[in-house]
């Protein structure tokens, strides 16, 4: 699995929230609904996982209007 965000958080395994930058329309909904507030838009207006504090609860994925978000289980929990 490749994380297509240019702002991949710096960790040796993939982030738990993966954004498909080709699909992301920068609507900000995933950023808004994330309970932990860990997503942000980068300088090109695409969403990315900014903080490694994911509850893998999936509102970001469910509420994305263009199916650009995939939530994986964080490495330690897998």
């Amino acid at each position, binding site marked *: 699995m490749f994380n297509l965000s240019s702002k991949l958080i710096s960790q040796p395994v993939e982030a738990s929230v993966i954004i498909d930058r080709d699909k992301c329309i920068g609507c900000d909904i995933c950023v808004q609904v994330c*309970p932990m507030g860990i997503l942000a838009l980068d300088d090109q207006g695409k969403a990315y996982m900014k903080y490694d504090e*994911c509850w893998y609860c999936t*509102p970001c994925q*469910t509420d994305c209007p263009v199916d650009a978000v995939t939530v994986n289980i*964080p490495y330690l929990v*897998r």
Partner: protein
Amino acid sequence: METREYTADVVIVGGGTAGTMAAIKAKQAYPSLSVLVLDKADIRRSGAISMGMDGLNNAVIPGKATPEEYTWEITESNDGIVDQQAVFRQASECYDIVKELDSWGVDFEKDAKGDYEVYRVHRKGRYVLPMPKASDLKLILAKKVKQMRCKVVNRVMATRLLTEGNRVAGVLGLDVKNGDYIIVRAKSVILTAGAAGRMGLTDSGYLYSTYENPTNSGEGYAMAYHAGVELTGIECYQINPTMKDYNGPACAYVAGPFGGYTANAKGERVTGCDYWSGELIMNMWKMANKGEWPLYLKLTHLDDESISKIEAILHHNERPSRDRFHAGRGKDYRTDMVELHFSEVGLCSGHSAAGVLVDHEAQTSMEGLFAAGDMASVPHQYLLGALTFGKIAGTNAAAYAAGAAQLEASQEQIEAERVRIYKPLELPAGVPHQQVETKIRRIVSQYLMPPKTVVKMDVALEKIEHFRKVDLTLLGARDPHELGRALEVHSIVDCAEMMAKASLFRKESRWGFYHYFLDYPERDDANWMKRVVLRKGENGEMLLYTKELPPQIITSRPASEEEETSHVQSVV
């Protein structure tokens, strides 16, 4: 970073299930009042249920169960330490909430005649009402809040109450997105800030794989404490049976009615009743310490259709990433038993009993201040209790605000909190919040966990005091988001100290594993059939004392039409 000020008649701290319902009902009761909801996340997906819930665990549906039966059930489940009038009120008024949710589009399981379908998971009665497609419950509540013209300010983390004497005057907090300082003046305040879910360390080692939504880090408990409000039952911890390493519930509630059960390694059934209680956890803990471990969720004996139905619920509402977790470990309910374990320790009246002391009107010990949901002391409330007491709190807070004047906010309180809030930003290269949080949660896991001893609690208190003096002053933050996380660590420390002191104060054992105190291993009804209450004293010290329970209204088990036997909670 600026200062933003708001004024409202009623302000609600936390827009989860209880908070959104409180807002809706406050406005419904008094449409002319201004109602403001603060949430550190976004009310569309915030609070304990975030993505939804698989069912209502304690629905008292006429014809299926009675409020008397339910009240007695919870009295027994919580070893007698209950305000029966509050539990009875929840039981009597929850059916109206179910019907109202139904009318708003929440999907409940019904039989061929259109009646609600309820199942038995408790010791005796039938109260479990499945919600097969409840993943949109929070969206529905959030929409209602907007329809009612309540004002919502998301990404604001409330940190302290504004008070004057024993009356509430508003709320202070931080915008965790842009760092603004938030001052809210209000006539009445409703605390619905949820559980203290980030107390113990998780099994997985990931800080945020907690059973509770990790946003629920105990601010409600801490805010109430620092305002001098009474809390109770803090020694009655929450520890839940969950999947090993994954925060999904062990799920007898969902799988039980289909024939699933908790099994040992040989696949033999080991629990008679899977209702969550300290007694159940005690039985599990004893098995673990006898080497009869692990336990498993066993569904392999069920047919494919039943398993598919269970998956359709378990993998889509409450914990939608559950399928990914199982798939990642190569487990399938059809062929594999799935390992269970305990959750980390926390505080949550939703499943247990710890909370801000409220009566049956959701009134706290402070004038104008109400509380509901996982942080209010009505035991075993679950989702439906949050909704029912959210309604009660909203209605009563609005009635209070309608007849009250706005107090002047104390400039001294405002400035003191401003200084406290922004301190970690002065140390951008300070110790990151993750590390500081790990250390306090390590203290919780290693010393506050049952079995409790005086020695362990004393050591914990010594370490907590040191932690306040040293570690909290090293805590750094580089932006408003990290600042919010850093302030959450302060709430965790406050709750940890309350847990240690309340545990030391109750000199008996009660609630199974939740307060298993080796220095006083027996339950002592003669001396301790009462509440342990704590609050912050005038000089900043923690005061602990007992309070008699409110008068019992039901003193023996009501006769039930549906007598069932051999549903004893024990390990076979």
